[in-house]
Structure formats: structure tokens, C-alpha cells
């Protein structure tokens, strides 16, 4: 077990390294291969009307003229330890985890992201709780009432849920609940430490909107899994013991159905933590998704790289947790 976790951790680090190589290659190697000079790369850092000497200073300071593998080494070192940039006259420190300097304001990328992370985490975790409970509950009920009106209705709603994009359901929700009926007026993000009640109140609409999309998916998966599980021999054994049907369903049926759901749940959550771009845009939440959009609009490569690395980190960690959880959930994969 402990060896499995260590092995899995090493794998995780390796995976993150590969991601960093790929992003680095895309943003630094590919332009160079495409004929861009270090000078031109450096020019992106210094504003709209740069003086050549300034550009040269940046080029040397960021080491853009160094061999590419040296630059990559410095990039990785920056992420892991933080790094000093120095051209003799101008020293700037980029603390851990260093994703480089933003084109926009010449500041390190990471501190600009940190304020956005709690927003996205709040949104993603809240929605995740909602969709997991809602989706699984609806899925189980649908499976048990297969073919009934409830089943057809919930699966119809679920189909709508997976089909309707967030920018549609989100706007409808905003129009109805915020504007028309003023249940949640003036949706804006309030930090949980500032005012927990306001935090929750302002996030309810985004939570529901985001959860609706995923709950629909989870309801369908749960229903299919439940229908399969309830036909298994061990369910018949549970009934043959004389267990009440409720216990047969919850303890024996749902237990087996939940295993694959945990897997996709981990993946979905990891993916969302990297930024729920659509939901954040619709509800103007200043999270990583918004940060990403701004970074892309500004062609701010270091910021984009930072977001990519952070998203990759979340996904890989989510995967790691799922894998370790799996050994607890499914005794057959225990090592």
C-alpha cells in the first residue's frame, strides 16, 4: 500500500514534469523554431513602444538568449523554488511558485492568481456537493422506478441538463432569480472569510447552474450503473438473506455503483478547479476562469502557462487522490 502511494507520487511528479515540458516547449521552443529571436520574445515584456536597449536588458535578465534547456531548467527551478532574475543592474526575485512575469504589468504571475483561486474553489466545491448528491439521488430513484413517469421526467430533464450550455441556463437563472424575482439580486463574489452568509448567498445561482450540468450527467451514469448492479447475483443473495429492500439498494446496490462514479467525480472536480470559464463569465466571478480569459485576450503567455500548469496540477492531484481512494473503495484493487 505504502509502496503503491510512493510509486503513484513519483508518477505524479513525472507527469507534472511532462506537462511543464510541453507547455514550455509550446511557449518558448516553438516560437524559436518558428524563427522568432530572443530579442523579439523579450520585446513582448516591455510595453507598446519599447526602446531596443530596454528589450535587450529584459532579454538578458530573463535569460532568453540562453540555450533552451538552460531556460527550461530555470523555469522548473522557478516553479519549485523561486528564482532570481539578474542582468547585472536590475535584480528581480520571482518567488515560489514562479510562473514567470506577466506581460501586462511585469509582475510575477502567481501572486496575481492567488486571489482568484478561492473563488474557483468555492464555486467548484459547492457545485460538486450539489451535483453529487442530486445526481446520484435522482439516478438511484430513476433506476428503481424504471419506466415510470418519474424516470421519464428526470431522464428528460437530465438530457436537457447535459444538452443546455451554461451560458444559456446561467443567463436564464440570472434573469429569473436575480432580475425578475429578485431572490438573489446583484450576484457578486464575497469571500467566505468576509461574510460566509453572503458568500453562500451569492454563489447559490452559480452553484445550481454548474451543478445542473453535471448532475444531469451523474444522474444518467448512476441510473445506468444502478440498473446493472441491481441485476447482479449478489443483490439476489442480499435479498435471499432477508434484507429489507431499502438496505439492499443502499448498502449493496449503491455501494457497487458508486465506485465508477468516484472516478469521474475526481476527474470532473480536478478539471473544474482549473477554472470554470463559462460559469465564471456568466456570473462575473473573478476566478481562475476569468483570469484565463483575460490572459488569452492579452496574449499574456506567462499567465497562460501559469494557468495551464495550475490546472494540470489540480487534475493530476485529483487523479492521485482517486487512485488512492480506489484502493480503499474497491478491495479488489488493493495492493
Amino acid at each position, binding site marked *: 500500500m505504502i509502496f503503491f502511494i510512493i510509486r503513484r507520487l513519483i508518477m505524479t511528479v513525472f507527469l507534472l514534469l511532462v506537462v511543464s515540458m510541453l507547455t514550455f516547449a509550446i511557449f518558448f521552443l516553438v516560437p524559436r523554431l518558428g524563427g522568432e529571436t530572443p530579442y523579439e520574445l523579450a520585446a513582448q515584456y516591455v510595453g507598446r513602444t519599447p526602446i531596443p536597449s530596454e528589450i535587450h536588458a529584459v532579454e538578458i535578465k530573463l535569460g532568453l538568449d540562453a540555450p533552451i534547456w538552460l531556460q527550461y531548467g530555470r523555469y522548473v527551478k522557478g516553479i519549485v523554488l523561486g528564482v532570481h532574475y539578474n542582468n547585472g543592474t536590475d535584480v528581480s526575485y520571482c518567488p515560489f511558485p514562479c510562473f514567470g512575469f506577466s506581460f501586462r504589468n511585469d509582475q510575477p504571475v502567481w501572486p496575481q492568481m492567488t486571489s482568484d483561486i478561492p473563488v474557483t474553489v468555492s464555486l467548484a466545491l459547492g457545485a460538486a456537493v450539489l451535483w453529487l448528491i442530486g445526481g446520484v439521488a435522482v439516478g438511484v430513484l430513476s433506476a428503481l422506478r424504471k419506466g415510470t413517469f418519474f424516470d421519464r421526467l428526470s431522464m428528460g430533464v437530465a438530457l436537457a441538463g447535459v444538452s443546455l450550455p451554461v451560458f444559456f441556463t446561467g443567463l436564464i437563472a440570472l434573469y429569473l432569480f436575480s432580475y425578475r424575482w429578485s431572490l438573489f439580486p446583484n450576484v457578486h463574489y464575497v469571500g467566505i472569510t468576509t461574510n460566509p452568509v453572503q458568500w453562500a448567498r451569492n454563489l447559490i445561482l452559480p452553484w445550481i447552474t454548474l451543478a445542473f450540468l453535471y448532475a444531469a450527467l451523474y444522474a444518467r451514469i448512476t441510473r445506468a450503473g444502478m440498473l446493472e448492479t441491481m441485476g447482479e447475483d*449478489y443483490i439476489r*443473495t442480499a435479498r435471499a438473506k432477508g*434484507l429489507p429492500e431499502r438496505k439492499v439498494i443502499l448498502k449493496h446496490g449503491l455501494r457497487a455503483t458508486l465506485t465508477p462514479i468516484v472516478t469521474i467525480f475526481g476527474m470532473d472536480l480536478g478539471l473544474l478547479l482549473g477554472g470554470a470559464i463559462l460559469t465564471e463569465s456568466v456570473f462575473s466571478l473573478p476566478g481562475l476562469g476569468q483570469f484565463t480569459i483575460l490572459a488569452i485576450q492579452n496574449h499574456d503567455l506567462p499567465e497562460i502557462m501559469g494557468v495551464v500548469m495550475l490546472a494540470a496540477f489540480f487534475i493530476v492531484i485529483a487523479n492521485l487522490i482517486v487512485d488512492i481512494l480506489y484502493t480503499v473503495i474497491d478491495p*479488489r484493487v488493493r495492493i
Partner: protein
Amino acid sequence: MQAEDAGRISPSAMLEVRDLRVHFQTDDGLVKSVDGVSFTLDRGRTLGIVGESGSGKSVTSLGIMGLNTGKNVYISGEIWLDGEELVSAPPTRVRELRGRKMAMIFQDPLSSLHPYYTVGNQIIEAYRLHNDVSKQVARKHAIDLLGRVGIPQPSVRIDDYPHQFSGGMRQRAMIAMSLSCDPELLIADEPTTALDVTVQAQILDLISDLQEEFGSAVIIITHDLGVVAELSDDILVMYAGRVAEYGAAEDIFGDPGHPYTWGLLGSMPRMDRERTERLIPIPGTPPSLIRVPPGCPFHPRCAYTGLTGGRCDTEVPLLREVVNFGHHAACHLTDDDRTRLWAELSAGVVPAEAEIPAEAKFEPGTGVQESPPDYEKGSPVGGAGETVSPSGADS
């Protein structure tokens, strides 16, 4: 066929099934999986239910347990378990009896045990469901049970998961679970089909040992005549959801009264016969249970329909007593014809329809005692199962 059985019904019977019918409404039509089955079973006795795949054996047993669920199931008839009628009883009452008064062992012990719970947990769950005891007491009981069914180091293995057990051990664990509440009726549905030949004998021995110890009534469902030959007091031969023959094991093996039983016996390899003798398969396949042939359901595959003056395909044969008291067969053949044909078969005459070369000599065994179970000598009992039931799987 129900009236004829009246002679066998005894007031002391642990289990008495009267005219049980289990029908399933499907898109293709009404499937008459069990269509008028009656039998009785006393304490400490074993009934073997034999038949091909789809003959209704499993559905009968699930019907007794009240496990034929679903909106499309129609059950009628009577099931008396220790003086209590189950078909008309509320489902909650039948549920209370399940696992406590009647328990069941299933065919595939791996898929029948929950993969995510330890063997011990599953036994403890069954025990505590019907007995108000603490977890510690239940655990002790489970360890004791596992030891009694022959699991080595039961206090350690109790915390294993089913996949850590071998096939035979899983079936032992299943048996331990089913016996956890001292059931008075134990139904074993093909308990050895999924197991190695060497393990089969051990499991059967275990079942019969435990039966002696617990004094339960046992129903063994199988397509393997070798299994019932060893264990059963009575045998019920089912065909197309109906009883073809019902009687004491010695009668069924020694003096079978139904052409279908003759076919089953003829298609089973036996150690007490010459190696050169051919097995004689039953021609054709079991009928669809949606469109059961009119008259005797076996008549399209029967070699002797010419002897009854056309009754076979028009008139449903009733179970009637043949030769010995309590030995019933559902066949239109007269006692004289039946006795003569069986004597001929025993002497090696092969029915023309079987299209087997004449040199194949057929000499069925004369009784249970003279025919030790084949698997103990490693003969291809699985092959016998194949001949009787081509699909191998029971529905």
C-alpha cells in the same frame, strides 16, 4: 396433476408445494416457467430437482424463496412452509422468513458474494438481521460457522474478501452464510456447477454432513444426475416447467417411468458401464416456454408417441402413480408398455429416433447404491451435464 399428489402430502411436511405456477409476462408472450408443480419435503430429507436448462428448476426455487420479483411475474398455487402459506403472505413476512427459516445457496459463489464486503461482514450481516446480538457475538458465530464448513484459519480468513477465496472456499462461505440462522429449509441451486470436479464432491459431502447436523430439509437443484444420485432421497424431474417424474431416488434411477428420464439416464456416462458403450443423447431441444407443445410437452422429442394412439400431442398427461407407491410419472404410456420398453432399453435396444449405430449397447445402472458418483473417480461428469443441457447455463 395436483389431485394425484394428494397421497404424498403428509401433515408433518416441512415444505409442501401445491400446483405452483410462475408465469412471466414478456413482450413475446406469457412465459410459463413453472406450470403446476407440486411436491412435499420432510425435515432431514433431500429433494433433488433435475432438468435441462430452462425447465423451471431455478424459478421454482426462487418462487419458494419469494425472490421472483418484478411487475411482470404472476405466481399462483400454494407454498406451505412449516404450516405457513407463502404465496398469499405479505412480502414483508416472506422477507422475515428468508435467511432465517429458509436459505439459499447459489450457483456461482463469486458473483453471488458482494465483492466490496468481507466474507465475515456478509455472514455477520445475515446473522444479525435475524438475531438481536452484538457485533462481537455475531463475529464469533461467523468464525465458528466458517470453521464448521471447513475454512482453514477461520478467525483470519473471516476478514478476507471473496476474491481472496478460491472457488470452493467461496461456496463454503456461501454455505456458512446460508446456515448462519439455522434454516429449516436449505435450497441449493446448482451448488457445484461452477466448481472444479474435485471440489464438487467436497461441497456435496459438506452439504450432506451439515444437513445431518442441522436436520434441515434440503432441495438440490441440478442438471447433473450424478449430484442427485448421491444426495437425494426423492427426485423431481422437471420438463418445460412441469413435473415429468417424481419419486424416491431408487425408483427414479432403478425403474424410471418417463421416457424423458430414460433419456437423461441414457445420456449420462456411468462408471458401472462398459467403456465401449455409446451415450445416447435426447434428440431435439427443450421447447420454448412461451409456446409449449400441446399435449405432453415432451412429445416432439419422444420416441414412443406411436404407442398411445395419438394422445401424446393432444392430451396433457397427468402425474399418476407407476408401479411403486409414491412414484409418479406424467406419461400416457400404459404400465405394460412402460415396463416392456424399460426392459428393452435396459437390455440395450436403442430407440430408432436416436439414430445411434446398433452396436451401441445401453445398459443403465440398476440403482443408486451400485452407481457411485462419477466425479469421485474423475470421470467426465461435466460431459454428462453438457449432454443433458447443451447450453450449460441455467436460466
